[in-house]
């Protein structure tokens, strides 16, 4: 642990690594969602988002985990530029959710 972690937390301690690993392992043990399904999901997410935003497709991570609040599908998507890719269907604004 480095100085900051010693004082402010234990975010990269072996215990917290163990906890994060367990959350991933158990979610896979408990569900029927395979790694293959997650990879297909990842490809589809990448292609959907790339139509609008420039992202680092190679570094996208899609994981399923669960905690006290339930299962959670998380996509970690590094963005290359915040300028939006020009969208072909411009003008069609999504209706606001009520």
């Amino acid at each position, binding site marked *: 642990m480095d100085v900051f972690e010693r004082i402010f937390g234990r975010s990269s301690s072996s215990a917290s690594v163990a906890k994060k690993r367990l959350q991933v392992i*158990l979610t896979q043990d408990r569900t029927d969602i395979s790694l293959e399904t997650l990879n297909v999901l990842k490809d589809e997410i990448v292609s959907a988002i790339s139509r609008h935003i420039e992202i680092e497709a190679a570094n996208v991570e899609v994981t399923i985990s669960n905690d006290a609040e339930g299962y959670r599908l998380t996509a970690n998507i590094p963005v290359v530029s915040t300028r939006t890719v020009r969208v072909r269907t411009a003008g069609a604004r999504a209706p606001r959710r009520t």
Partner: protein
Amino acid sequence: MAGQVITITSGKGGVGKTTATANIGVALARRGQRVACVDADIGLRNLDVVMGLENRIVYDLVDVVEGNAKLRQALIKDKRLPELHLLPAAQTRLKSAVNEAQMQEVCGELKKEFDFVLVDSPAGIESGFKTSVAPADQVLLVVTPEVSSVRDADRVIGLIEAYEKPTPQLIINRLRPALIRRGDMLDTADVLEILAVELIGIVPEDERIISSTNKGQPVALEDHSESGAAFMRIAQRLMGEQVPFQMFAESPGWLERVSKFLRR
């Protein structure tokens, strides 16, 4: 009133089921409860040794099931605690020597005479595990704060639910406060959050467990060890008493973190 059958089990082997069974049995008996400990680990019996009763075995569980002995003849009475009894496992037989229905019948008989029937389950999730869980009114799941033990515990929770038994209650064993403080061991909150089951006790790692096992004198026979006290609190909770949980450095304060830093 009929007693309850409590099966002590785990996912991973060697995490402390037998130690827990012996000590919870001792602790309950010290509180005046009538207790029968049943060794369901047929072929690899150990509960007799941990309890220090190995020299008194005449008949065993398989003898009872096969009709070679009466239950009363096979039960060993512990001379140190008049309320404590052991039904030993057979050492030279296979797990398949006792099936679920037979285990249920034996435990059903014991329940009539004892307040608590504690079943020490074998390692693994094969037939022996299922047999030992079959008679349970309540299941205690022993886990150590390690990745493989927690993972296997999770699997067993699923199996126990599939058998339509009540959700097990957790015993976290071999907790090492110094490692937790350093961030090198999962703490109680971590394990509970991951497994999402109720806690019934935390037992610290304690050298005395090794020396007491050497002598065949479970730590819970005496008052002065931390682990013995932890088993006593589990026994009290099983009896329905409200006993506060002892925290073993689970949430170190900032001062402690800083002072540790200063020392180096």
